[in-house]
């Protein structure tokens, strides 16, 4: 047991927990004032239900003792935290890892909430989240970390494929089943509270240091490099997005800075423990530019991804994951993984990255689509028109976000 490592993993876990509220504010601020509480609730709900599911059977299926299960899914040996002791050699490190990864499990479905905003039944969401976690998140996680994809040599440091690409493509499947919001895309809805968006952005960036650098599962050199990468990629991507906007639309915006920061954080996530030097800046710049254009696709392609989960998380995650194929630098880390093309490697790593993402995309899209269809055919996934017009806060939660002024 090393107290520094324990301290680091625990702090990182707390920081990742904090990201889900952060995400809620980031999304909620962008939403209209009559749907913001539904957005917050979709996010907070994830940190209520997923932890329970995770310690019950999620963890053991996804990441249980490496010997367990097969290359596709774990077994039930560590179900209900069975046999995870805090005394002895391990000193609690395994349990700390369960908690740390539980935070990841919780925020992943929360990412999807941004796409389905303003029109999804909360009852459908309540079922979707735990089921999706088990049917989509858990197997993809297993494949990537210790399963058949990881074993082939693909890399995903803190969840580019397993989390962002996975949730991003699932978001697309969800909105294809859900359909468009009334009035979209002709009627637009500007963010109801940009300060709330920026509060969310600040919390997300802060927490993301735990997300990425904590994924070293030790306070060591790799954690430090992952930290530095998280710092630089977010900055570069935020800058890139703002510059594109400034040139293209005439204004550098807060929402652009925030979106770029998040895009950079997403893109560096898979790469954080494998790239070094100025690489995170390049990754950030590419992600910032690409995502800034990617969010405009939905209008052309006609899918109503309300708050751009596809454009930011799917695209950003994919960009970062593929760029590992160019930037991976094992020598710097003194570690054994394939070199990227810019560091003397062949295209093999890039192909493995493509394969890993491809596999995740196919599985995630197919199962998510099926799950949403099933929900649509049974309890229904979409609120009725009147609820949508009234606003989901009042219609589904009996609450109103703001009661200010003398008329409440």
């Amino acid at each position, binding site marked *: 047991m090393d107290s520094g490592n324990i301290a680091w993993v625990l702090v990182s876990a707390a920081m990742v927990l904090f990201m889900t509220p952060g995400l809620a504010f980031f999304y909620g601020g962008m939403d209209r004032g009559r749907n913001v509480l539904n957005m917050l609730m979709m996010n907070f709900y994830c940190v209520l239900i997923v932890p329970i599911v995770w310690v019950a059977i999620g963890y053991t299926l996804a990441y249980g003792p490496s010997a367990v299960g097969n290359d596709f899914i774990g077994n039930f040996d560590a179900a209900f935290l069975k046999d995870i002791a805090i005394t002895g050699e391990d000193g609690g490190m395994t349990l700390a890892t369960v908690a740390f990864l539980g935070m990841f499990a919780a925020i992943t479905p929360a990412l999807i909430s941004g796409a389905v905003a303003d029109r999804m039944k909360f009852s459908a969401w309540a079922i979707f989240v735990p089921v999706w976690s088990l049917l989509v998140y858990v197997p993809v996680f297993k494949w990537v970390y210790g399963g058949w994809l990881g074993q082939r040599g693909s890399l995903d440091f803190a969840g580019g494929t397993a989390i962002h690409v996975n949730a991003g493509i699932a978001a697309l499947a969800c909105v294809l089943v859900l359909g468009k919001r009334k009035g979209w895309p002709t009627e*637009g*809805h*500007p*963010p109801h509270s940009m300060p709330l968006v920026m509060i969310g952005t600040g919390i997300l960036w802060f927490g993301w240091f735990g997300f990425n650098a904590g994924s070293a599962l030790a306070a060591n050199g790799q954690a430090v490099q992952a930290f530095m990468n998280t710092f630089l990629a977010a900055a570069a991507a935020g800058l890139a997005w703002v510059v594109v*906007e400034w040139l*293209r*639309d*005439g*204004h550098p*915006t807060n*929402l*652009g800075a925030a*979106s770029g920061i998040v895009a950079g954080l997403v893109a560096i996530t898979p790469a954080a423990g494998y790239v070094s030097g100025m690489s995170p800046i390049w990754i950030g710049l590419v992600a910032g530019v690409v995502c*800034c254009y990617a*969010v*405009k696709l939905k*209008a052309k392609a006609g899918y109503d991804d309300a708050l*751009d989960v596809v454009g930011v998380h799917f695209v950003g995650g994919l960009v970062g994951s593929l760029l590992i194929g160019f930037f991976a630098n094992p020598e710097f880390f003194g570690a054994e993984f394939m070199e990227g093309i810019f560091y003397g490697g062949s295209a093999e790593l890039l192909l493995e990255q493509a394969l890993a993402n491809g596999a995740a995309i196919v599985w995630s899209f197919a199962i998510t689509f099926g799950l949403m269809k099933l929900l649509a055919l049974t309890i229904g996934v979409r609120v009725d028109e009147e609820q949508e017009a009234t606003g989901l806060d009042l219609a589904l939660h009996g609450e109103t976000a703001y009661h200010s002024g003398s008329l409440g």
Partner: protein
Amino acid sequence: MKLITAIVKPFKLDEVKSALQAAGITGITVSEVRGFGRQGGHTEVYRGAEYRIDFVPKVRLEIVVADESVDSIVSAIAEAARTGKIGDGKIWVSDIGQIVRIRTGESGVDAI
């Protein structure tokens, strides 16, 4: 008695208020409104998507005055609120049959 309603630019409110005080007005009711007119609105761009905002913030003043003061008050407002640029606003006047001061129950010109 008359009710004068004026729609003015928000940043002119302080000047209009001073002009009205100078003209002897002791009571005004104001509210935030949005105006649509020749002035046009503006466009905001979020993540590359444009949102057109047609309604421009304005302030609305309501002042009940005795018949004889109407003209002077209307011109006082108009002068104080004028910038000469499109969107300065409007003033209109209508008849009031009765006015009551709630505190005392007084009515008519005394209640203004």
